[in-house]
């Protein structure tokens, strides 16, 4: 084979093939055709991700345990919690809606966070390479099913619908949820697949 395949990269956005170049610090390689980011310095990005995933786990736990909003309608009070909402859907027989909502706002985000943490531990000790590989694949797939950000926007939309009829107070979890979405958007979902794989290979191949 004339070229080493590891020196090549194909833009995930427009499928154009490029030769990889050594990057100076804090520089980003971009696609010459569509301008999309190809890769950056992976070491920093991943170290950042570990700290943030632990933060994200704490925020997510708070967000799903306590009321996000409290609503008063006609003298009666009611809370919005993620488990409560899912239980209501199941109790009323909406199993399909309940299951899909459960997957996209609880299971997928949790898999993403836990995968980052597991990956950090495994690569630190350089153990279970094969298993870690599955984690990376799984993490990347799960990210496209995690929709907490959209759920947050939906809460705002629901609030507007309730404004006329109800008095609304924000619960502790609303802040946790907002912070979680910020971390999720700017860190957890922002690391490119290729950067994860580069980090993975480097972590195991380095002596």
């Amino acid at each position, binding site marked *: *084979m004339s*070229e080493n*395949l*590891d020196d*090549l*990269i*194909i833009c*995930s*956005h*427009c*499928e*154009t*093939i*490029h*030769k990889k*170049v050594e990057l100076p610090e804090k520089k980003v390689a971009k696609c*010459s*055709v*569509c301008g999309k980011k190809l890769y950056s310095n992976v070491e920093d990005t991943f170290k950042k991700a570990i700290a943030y995933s632990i933060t994200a786990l704490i925020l997510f736990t708070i967000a799903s345990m306590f009321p996000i*909003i409290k*609503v008063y*309608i*006609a003298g*009666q009070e009611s809370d*919005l*919690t993620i488990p*409560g*909402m*899912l239980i*209501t*859907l199941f109790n*009323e027989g*909406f199993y*399909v*809606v*309940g299951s*899909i*909502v459960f997957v*996209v*706002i609880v299971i997928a985000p949790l898999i993403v966070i836990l995968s980052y943490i597991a990956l950090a531990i495994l690569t630190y000790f350089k153990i279970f390479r094969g298993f870690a*590989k599955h984690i990376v*694949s799984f993490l990347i*797939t799960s990210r*496209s099913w995690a929709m907490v950000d*959209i*759920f947050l*926007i*939906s*809460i705002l*939309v*629901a609030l*507007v*619908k*309730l404004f*006329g*009829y*109800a008095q609304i107070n924000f619960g502790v979890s609303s802040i946790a949820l907002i912070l979680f979405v910020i971390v999720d958007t700017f860190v957890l979902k922002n690391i490119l*697949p*290729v950067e994860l*794989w580069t980090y993975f290979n480097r972590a195991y191949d380095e002596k």
Partner: protein
Amino acid sequence: MKSNKDKYIRCPYCESVNVDNGGVVYCRTCKNRISGNKEINLRNAWAMLITAMIFYVIANIYPILVISKFGVTSSNTIIGGAIALWEEGSYPISIIIFVASVFVPLLKFILILYILTNYKKPQKGSRRVDQAMLYHITEVIGPWSMVDVFVVAILAGVVHMSSVKITAGIGATAFVLMVFFTMLSAMSIDIRLMREDNDGD
């Protein structure tokens, strides 16, 4: 820097570059199947897309939300809900609901249809790029159609007083299935459909 692009294929799971032999390709790095039988992939994509479209129609006919106030029930379809919000003066929210629930799924259908119907025709380089771009647009906008389902789940989760009660409607079930099958359809599109010249061997 560019080099010959048709010999190589990108692994969608691990992004590593692989040699494309034109047949079934397993990734040299992560061992996942990158590309299989194009015809089967195409058939799957069509089947998922048509299923999604049927659910889209059902989701728009049946109520997504049922409100019972003092024993009197009324229901809202997706479009009915958006119109009601508009009439109440909540223009931005009405637009969000309309765009997320009506427009985004339609746009996604059109983009997937375009990719599926165009891939067999010979294409010039620039068209190929468009194809990949269109696919990425569907990936980015797709999840946003979940807004209405979440809103229904939230309202049903919070409004269950003795005097007023909101529950989900059949439309909500059809709607999540529509979102699910649209995502599956997009995922079964072979990566080569976006890239190859398809000029025969």
